[in-house]
């Protein structure tokens, strides 16, 4: 089966990949707060942070172009609000919105590209994020692959019986067929969820997922987190000072 690209990137072996997720989450939060609270100098700050993120993506041997394109997926959503601001006669706010959302998305792509999702969820858990929410995230992630595989099987089965998929979906009843396939996928996913619950009960599940590894937050992780926060705060202050 095909695996999610971000998942493949996150299995790398750079110095960023080896950092404890908590250190990276702290750095990300500092970046998001710096961006969210900036007004004057936002373009300078956004440019500097984007440059740092792109350099670190390159350092982590993650394709910079592909990562930047993925971050751009957020732009259509921002465009709605930026457009409204523009039409309301506030083009500066529209620009701020675009910069803030794109750089924030790039930072999130950096985090998930350098941290396998299970580790990331564990990192959030150790920082005190609600356990239930994280467990839902973990299951969602795990069974995304199962549902994706089911979807691929159905697609292959449809193609095998109806010629190439493109030809098949171009027919008049393509929406009806697609809706039917989605319904089947939903039903299969539902059945799968029931099976999973049974399998968990069969191995003594009592409501919480146990954790095997304690994980270690090393000196290097602390240094990374402190350095990242200091750098981001410095850029935030400097960008505002340069504009004033």
């Amino acid at each position: 089966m095909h695996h999610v690209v971000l998942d493949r990137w996150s299995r790398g072996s750079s110095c960023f990949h080896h950092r404890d997720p908590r250190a990276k989450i702290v750095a990300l939060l500092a970046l998001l707060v710096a961006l969210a609270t900036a007004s004057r100098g936002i373009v300078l700050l956004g440019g500097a942070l984007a440059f740092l993120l792109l350099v670190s993506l390159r350092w982590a041997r993650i394709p910079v172009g592909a990562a930047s394109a993925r971050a751009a997926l957020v732009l259509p959503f921002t465009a709605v609000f930026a457009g409204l601001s523009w039409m309301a006669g506030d083009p500066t706010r529209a620009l701020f919105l675009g910069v803030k959302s794109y750089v924030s998305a790039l930072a999130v792509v950096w985090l998930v590209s350098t941290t396998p999702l299970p580790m990331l969820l564990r990192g959030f858990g150790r920082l005190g994020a609600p356990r239930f929410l994280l467990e839902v995230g973990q299951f969602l992630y795990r069974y995304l692959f199962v549902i994706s595989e089911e979807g691929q099987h159905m697609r292959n089965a449809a193609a095998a019986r109806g010629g190439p998929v493109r030809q098949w979906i171009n027919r008049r009843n393509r929406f009806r067929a697609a809706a039917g396939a989605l319904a089947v996928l939903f039903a299969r996913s539902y059945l799968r969820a029931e099976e999973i619950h049974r399998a968990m009960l069969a191995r003594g599940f009592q409501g919480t997922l146990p954790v095997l590894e304690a994980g270690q937050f090393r000196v290097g992780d602390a240094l990374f987190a402190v350095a990242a926060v200091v750098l981001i705060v410095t850029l935030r202050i400097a960008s505002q000072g340069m504009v004033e």
Partner: protein
Amino acid sequence: MSPLIEVSGLHYRYDDGVPALNGIDFRLERGETVALLGPNGSGKTTFVLHLNGLLNGEGSITVCGLPLEKKNLPAVRRKVGLVFQESDSQLFMPTVLEDVAFGLLNLGMDAPAAEARAREALQMTGIAGLAGRAPYHLSAGEKKRVAIAGILAMEPEILILDEPTTYLDPPGQRSLAALLAELPQAKILVTHDIPFAAALASRAVFFEQGKVAADGPIHEIVEQFGWEFVVRAETRRKTRGQHLIP
């Protein structure tokens, strides 16, 4: 000595009212390996789900002397290890090692001991090298082995395997049969794979329409129901050159 599992008069209906089990009587003795045979939809899987308390039908079930009641469920689930047909349903933790240790941690074992036991189970099933991998990155055969390791790690007194050879290639099936043959636990195999069942079980129970149609030595049961998969010369002659659909 009392049997490990004793079932009498077990009835079960699905939510839509369709009867699935119509009065099952069954015994499993210590150290015994029994194959459950029968056509698709005959109630084999529904039956074994009752033995772990996952389904709750009418009738009486006793596991290792414990009546199957709500208060005994944790103890029963510790004694009965169930390997599901679809390995994907059984593997939900981020890594193989954590998945195998899942049941042990639920039993209250501390993390270092659970990890050591999980690694032993992975070694036993020949997949020690997969410990750090994510379950969704494995082949179907590897997933099946991880699912089996997750149950073996819990050291149950009874092993139930639902279609254990699904997705395994012939060498994989042989090594699984060799592994199971070495395990001291009593086993119930739900399978259509007659050679595999015959290699491990001496007794078979044949299910038909939610009832036990026959119970006896596996070779007799297989012969009685024509359940062996042998392509006879006559069949070959008849089918040669013929289309499946005229």
